[in-house]
């Protein structure tokens, strides 16, 4: 397996607050990597550094290297807009575009980047919705508002929207935290399916979820990388005492 990301000495700040401290890690291609850790440990900031979303927050800063396919996405010649097209993102709360239909939500990334051909758009919408396991539920309602769907459907719509621009990586920031168990189970099985073709990085505060869906697990604590390895090893045989204490629920 090849590394999709190679992160070297990554630091991130909000103003003077140092939220990520010297992170070094490789993220494997076509696998699911889970980021776990207690609240405020920098999980979300970490994934937002991978597609340069961190810097859109006023006062936010990054240093270090994030090699994506061997190229540092923070080097001078790299356009953050192009980075984000290759590295899609799904957020904690489903955020479909209001005032847009289901179809337009999925097609938005392509349309706004200049794709006009109806045939290409139709095909992309269908392919993305099928990939997101949503097609059968919405195929007759493509002109309805995205906001008319249930929370779980909205989240799958957001996944379809991210997939429509054909990224190589999907970053998911606690995608199930606003969903019920049934919707969560659907998203989890979807994540396993997506890992066949995409590199998935998922932030979760739910350790069982990390154990269920991920191939690799990263444990962050207070902005530092404590342990990283195959999920099985991290959960069954953690090398660090801190990881074990977190996994056994001693703190959270």
């Amino acid at each position, binding site marked *: 397996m090849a590394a999709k990301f190679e992160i070297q000495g990554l630091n991130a700040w909000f103003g003077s607050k140092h939220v990520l401290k010297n992170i070094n890690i490789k993220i494997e291609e076509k696998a699911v990597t889970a980021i776990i850790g207690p609240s405020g440990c920098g999980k979300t900031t970490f994934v937002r550094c991978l597609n340069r979303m961190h810097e859109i927050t006023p006062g936010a800063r990054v240093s270090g290297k994030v090699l994506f396919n061997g190229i540092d996405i923070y080097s001078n010649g790299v356009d953050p807009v192009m980075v*984000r*097209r290759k590295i899609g993102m799904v*957020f904690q709360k489903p955020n*479909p575009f209001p*005032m*847009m239909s289901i179809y337009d939500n999925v097609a938005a990334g392509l349309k706004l980047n200049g794709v006009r051909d109806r045939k290409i758009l139709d095909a992309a919408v269908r392919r993305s919705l099928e990939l997101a396991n949503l097609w059968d539920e919405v195929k007759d309602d493509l002109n309805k508002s995205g906001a008319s769907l249930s929370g779980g459907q909205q989240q799958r719509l957001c996944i379809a929207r991210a997939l429509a621009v054909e990224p190589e990586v999907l970053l998911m920031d606690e995608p199930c935290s606003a969903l019920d168990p049934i919707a969560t189970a659907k998203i989890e099985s979807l994540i396993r399916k997506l890992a066949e073709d995409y590199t998935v990085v998922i932030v979760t505060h739910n350790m069982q979820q990390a154990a269920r869906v991920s191939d690799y697990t990263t444990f962050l604590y207070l902005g530092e990388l404590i342990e990283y390895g195959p999920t099985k090893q991290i959960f069954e045989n953690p090398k660090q005492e801190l990881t074990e204490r977190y996994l056994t629920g001693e703190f959270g």
Partner: protein
Amino acid sequence: MDYHKLRVAKNRLMQFLVYLALFSAIVPLLSILSEVIRRGFSTINFDFFIKPTPTVGEVGGGVANAVQGTLITIGLASLIGVPIGLMSGIFLSEYGELKLSVAVRFLHDVLSGIPSIVIGVFAYALITRSIGFSVTAAAFALAMIMIPIVARTTEEALKLVPMSIREAAIALGIPRWKTTITVVLSAAKKAIVTGILLSIARIAGESAPVLVSMGFWRWWFAGLDRPTANLALNVFIFAMSPFENWIALAWGSALVLILLVLGISVTARVFTRERY
């Protein structure tokens, strides 16, 4: 039991006070409307809508030229004021953390606080004195009144669009400027259009700056360097005239002005109706 009665009595009292407040707020509005409709309606006939202002001693006449002039004036003012106001509003909302935005926001507040007659004098000094009393000068003055209203309502409307929507678009690899003009603006469309309408309704009834910069004109539109007739000025000038038929025209003009503003709002409401 007594406690219960007291509670009911207090509830009744508060209800009474609330209804009283509602009533006293609505009475002036309804009495203005009913008086304008009663007096204005009797002057309205076919001629009223197709004939221009009558001269002294002439019987009949209408407000057709004033409707035309008012539409041209507010149209021209919107052409200047809406784009500038809209763009300032977008700037203030999307780049609000800059020092320049603080200054711009403050200047908008100052501008919206300037009495409209002063804006009229400004337009007079800047434009009327070089090209004469003209619809251009009036439109310029009215645009100055529109800009802070449009900018402020646009800013407020855009700020209500959740950050998560912007982030969703940016994370799709859509450039920031495109995110703003497509996703963010469309999410706030309704509130922005409402703000623009409010500003149009506001300037449609302005008389002081129009009088100073353009003056009164009783003929049809004759070019951008000439004045046009104006409904608000019709009300102002005719109401003070000694002639019965002119006073009737003032009431008629007031009614048409109200209907015009109402018509603009209703039309735009229909166009911006939520599709979902």
